């Protein structure tokens, strides 16, 4: 079983985002494996341990992402690939899709796992986009995956309800919170990770032209959500409060 995991290096969820001159400042920020991708890494390791095979983790990013790949190797993945995208101007989801498509063109895979969404950009597009390009089936938001022969039974989260889908392999499945409890990398795992293969690939290695992977979207503006205003507590008789609330929703908040 060849299992690949798509992984992204993201801001630590506890970091406070700051914007200066339209750019996000990441000086001194802590970075982590995107939490949803961490579920995917854990699931891949569990599937490999049960069914055999190899787990490869793949990321598109800069050399800083090596740390997150090493963390995945320390958790138990077998090898890692870092696809450098620094030469691509205005990279977006399309660019990542093109690089991954070129990467997987050369690979044999039974299962590709990834996070449901990255906590930074939050687009949730990479999994489905890649599956489309590779012409394989995909299931998003998995909370349980069972493999039987050439089939995967996937329980997915549908806005609080559960849906069970059977797909044949190869397939791409994205992980939702609840799929598993990711392990801590053990210390022997950390020491071993250093010796595991980590290959860095650039555009030339993948035979991709810079222009062909250029982003399709344009960032017009970046801004933080407005600060939350202090709430107001209405007073008086319940009936009066309701009338006042309706009036405020109409005239102040203009949502009615």
């Amino acid at each position, binding site marked *: 079983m060849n299992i690949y995991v798509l992984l992204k290096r993201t801001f630590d969820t506890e970091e406070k985002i700051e914007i200066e001159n339209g750019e996000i400042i990441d000086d001194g920020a802590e970075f982590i494996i995107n939490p949803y991708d961490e579920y995917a890494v854990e699931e891949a390791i569990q599937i490999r341990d049960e069914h055999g095979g190899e787990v490869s983790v793949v990321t598109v990013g800069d050399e800083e992402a*090596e*740390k997150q790949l090493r*963390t995945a190797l320390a958790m138990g993945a077998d090898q890692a690939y870092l696809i450098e995208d620094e030469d691509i101007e205005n990279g977006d989801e399309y660019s990542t899709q093109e690089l991954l498509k070129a990467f997987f063109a050369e690979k044999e895979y039974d299962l590709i796992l990834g996070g449901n969404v990255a906590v930074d950009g939050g687009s949730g597009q990479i999994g489905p986009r890649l599956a489309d390009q590779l012409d394989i089936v995909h299931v998003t938001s998995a909370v349980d995956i069972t493999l039987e022969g050439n089939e995967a039974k996937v329980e997915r989260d549908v806005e609080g309800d559960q849906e069970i889908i059977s797909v044949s392999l190869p397939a791409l499945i994205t992980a939702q919170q609840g799929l598993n409890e990711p392990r*801590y990398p*053990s*210390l022997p795992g*950390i*020491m071993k*990770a*250093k010796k595991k293969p980590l290959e860095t690939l650039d555009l030339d290695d993948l035979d991709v032209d810079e222009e062909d992977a250029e982003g399709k979207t344009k960032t017009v503006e970046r801004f933080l959500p407005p600060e939350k205003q202090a709430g107001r507590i209405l007073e008086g008789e319940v009936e009066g409060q309701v009338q006042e609330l309706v009036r405020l929703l109409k005239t102040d908040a203009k949502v009615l």
Partner: protein
Amino acid sequence: MNFELTQEQQLLKDMVRDFAQNEIAPKAREIDETGEFPIDTFKKMGELGLLGIPFSEEYGGSGGDTVSYSLAVEEIGRACGSTGLSYAAAVSLGASPLYYFGTEEQKQKYLVPLASGEALGSFGLTEPNAGSDAGGTQTKAVLDGDEYVINGEKCWITNAGFAKTVIVTAVTGKDARGKNIISAFIVPTDTPGFTINSNYDKMGVRGSNTSELILEDVRVPKENLLGDPEKGFKQFLYTLDGGRISIASLAVGIAQSAFDAALAYSKERKQFSQPISNFQAIQFKLADMSMEIELARNMVLKAAWLKDQGKKFTKEGAYAKLFASEMATRVCNQAIQIHGGYGYMKEYGVERMLRDAKLMEIGEGTSEIQRLVIARELGCGEKKKAKVNG
């Protein structure tokens, strides 16, 4: 010069921080209140390989260095002082002497279970009448055939109540100058005549097990003698040098935790219509606290680095332990001050940190002993010593 951690050290620090904040910190208040030793936490730490960081893989360890170990102690101490103390004692005092001085057979038999986290180790040095003056040890070991017979009492021994083996120091004779020869023995805790009581009611580190040992005609095979029989005293001085680095790391962790709480509180707490962090009185406290923590951390890591390079670190280890422990008490005290009345309440946790930090100035060599160690390294008092010995 390079102040960057290696990738492995950074990964380890991240892992221990995640683990400590998720699994240890939520229990800190409870184990302080109940005094219950968090044995489950130690099982989990063993599975992650944390109990064997500085030992090589052939003995069940993880093959890490002292810097990695220091980072781990700091992160665990940041989550919980009690757990940090028991962790540091298990590795630095319980297991390290076996690693430094044990025979191959002793290492296989006694170190492997400790390094791999299957059991906890402990080190019995202090006695009711021999604390700072370890040379005044009264516990005696007498060779009888193929066995040593040990009699005596030890006090304030960390982890002994949960240990599989305790390394016990005892007097085995006198040298030519009439001074006690002190040797170390590996004593399994289930040996007949060996009584361990854990009845102390402590000010802080209440979740860490502290025990009294009573040895009445405890017989161990003579193969259980640890290291050179003549150099037992030197051996435990070396062990304590290493232990100081870990206590200093623990002090840094506790101080960091108190500082984090104080900084967060100062930004939230409003008086005179603004956060108290706007006031210089509070700002100056926070600036001093943050600076002192970083200075202590740098000293600790330097001492750890010297040890890893195989260089002498006695003086630097003492600097680190002395400065970090006294710093931790100051920082925790100021953290309470910044919290005001809330800081005096258990709910806010900072009063616990002050109680925990105070031990750092006492355990594994008091601050006064650290100053003596430093002064000795500076060459002070040598003349007098030569006269006495001459």
